[in-house]
């Protein structure tokens, strides 16, 4: 894989500059969800935002997606604000739950963003076919979401996010509700898709081995207040397979990240 060279040449796609996020909770007390977070994400890179609940990883993803406005700091995506980026439909989002429309078949669910973007019918059908093929759900095109397993539903969510051909894929704990076996399978499939499409992926997770398995770099966030505590380069060779998970290098990285959390919890 000429992958390492590709990364070295890549320029930054996302610049996150001194982002803070403070909001008032129900008791009118100020909660610092993110405190002074700065990081850059390269074009074509697969990064994870990793940390326990309350570390602000989802908040940060939502700021990138323009679903939240930061209290301070700025985010630029290919030189644009998150709002401009969203209005140009430059990212695809995958949520923790599949967020499928129950009244639409699998095919129509994947088609949804294309309808909104007024993509011509023929082009729409073509793209839906190729997306369904990529996630291996062609046989279920005319099924309704309730007829699919949780893992299959989440695949539909991924196909839908990729259907608009976004530069950026934002994933908010997409596999956290799935069982371990399904999750590992989907991790491998996601990497396959990523190799084929060369998207930039920002992946939020609280699962250390998932972050290590998938990512080029892992941004470790710690809670109360949410801040960036370390950046771990994952130099495991690609393509990564089941064997990767059993390699000593993999275990070393997982244990390194786990140790970095021990410090956090001793303090709290």
């Amino acid at each position, binding site marked *: 894989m000429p992958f390492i060279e590709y990364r070295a040449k890549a320029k930054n796609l996302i610049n996150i500059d001194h982002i803070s996020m403070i909001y008032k909770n129900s008791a009118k007390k100020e909660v610092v969800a993110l405190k002074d977070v700065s990081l850059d994400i390269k074009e074509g890179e697969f990064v994870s935002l990793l940390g326990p609940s309350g570390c602000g990883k989802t908040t940060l993803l939502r700021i990138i*997606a*323009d*679903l939240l406005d930061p209290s301070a700091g700025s985010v630029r995506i290919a030189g644009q604000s998150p709002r401009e980026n*969203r*209005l*140009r*439909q430059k*990212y*695809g*989002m995958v*949520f*923790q*739950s599949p*967020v499928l*429309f*129950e*009244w639409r078949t699998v095919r129509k669910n994947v088609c*949804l*963003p294309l*309808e*909104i*973007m007024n993509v011509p019918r023929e082009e729409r059908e073509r793209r839906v076919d190729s997306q369904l093929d990529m996630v291996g759900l062609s046989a279920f095109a005319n099924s*309704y979401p*309730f*007829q699919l397993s949780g893992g299959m539903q989440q695949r539909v969510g991924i196909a839908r996010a990729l259907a*608009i051909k976004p530069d950026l894929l934002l994933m908010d704990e997409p596999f956290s509700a799935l069982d371990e076996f399904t999750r590992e399978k989907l991790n491998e499939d996601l990497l396959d898709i990523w190799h084929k499409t060369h998207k930039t992926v920002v992946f939020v997770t609280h699962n250390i081995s998932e972050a290590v398995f998938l990512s080029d770099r892992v941004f470790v966030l710690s809670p109360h207040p949410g801040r960036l505590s370390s950046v771990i380069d994952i130099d495991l060779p690609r393509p990564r397979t089941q064997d990767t998970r059993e390699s000593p290098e993999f275990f070393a990285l997982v244990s390194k990240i786990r140790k970095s959390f021990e410090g956090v919890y001793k303090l709290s």
Partner: protein
Amino acid sequence: MTRPKVFITIAWIAGVLTVWEIAAFLLADAFRDPMAATKLPYPQSVVVTIGNNASSLAQAAAVTLSKAVIGFAIGAAVGYLLAVLMSISRIAEQIAFPYLIVSQMIPVLGLAPIIFNLVRNMDASRIVIAAYITFFPVAANSLSGFKSVEAEKRQLMFSYAASKGATYAKLMVPFSLPYLFAGLKIAAPMSVTASILVDMLGSKSGIGVKLLYSLYGGQTDIFWASVLTSAAMGIASYLAVLLAERLCVPWRAAALADSGGRNE
């Protein structure tokens, strides 16, 4: 209908008829009540009366029902539009909702004569009252449907930079359909009842008139035939909405049937 459902329906009808038959027998032949035919005639005699008066009953029913249907349709449209408006704007909701609640505190029995005095037209009164009865359950249920749309679904549409129109067409409206139908199912028989009520305010035709005249004129058989016809109208209106729901919200019935539990 599935086989157990058919069985339940038959058992139900048979049960009602049996109890009715026994009660009528007790009144008429066991206790020899001289007023038995007024209090509770035999079901078969009512059926015979319906058969003998089929065309006049149907005519009366059509007068009442047709206006109820028009009023129901208008009320449903107004109610749904109100719900859309209230879901778009919180201010609109805060302004409109108290009126909705107050509107439900005015009894139809009191409102109907007022409306009749205003419009001086029986058909228009029937339509207005049926619409009035319909709009509230439709508005309240649909609004609750719009509010039940999960945040993530709305965020998904937001992430596509979808317009308000597209968001409503592709998400809010289809999502709220089951809620709309819940409201319609409540409203349909009520709008029929309302239309019958207006009949009784001095109309010259309609099933309500038949009920009233036959009751005061001592035509017990016609009275009971009219009661059954009214009931059939209410049930038919409900079944019509149920059928429309099956057609408009097919995914829901399929999902329920497929959820693996015992639903039926």
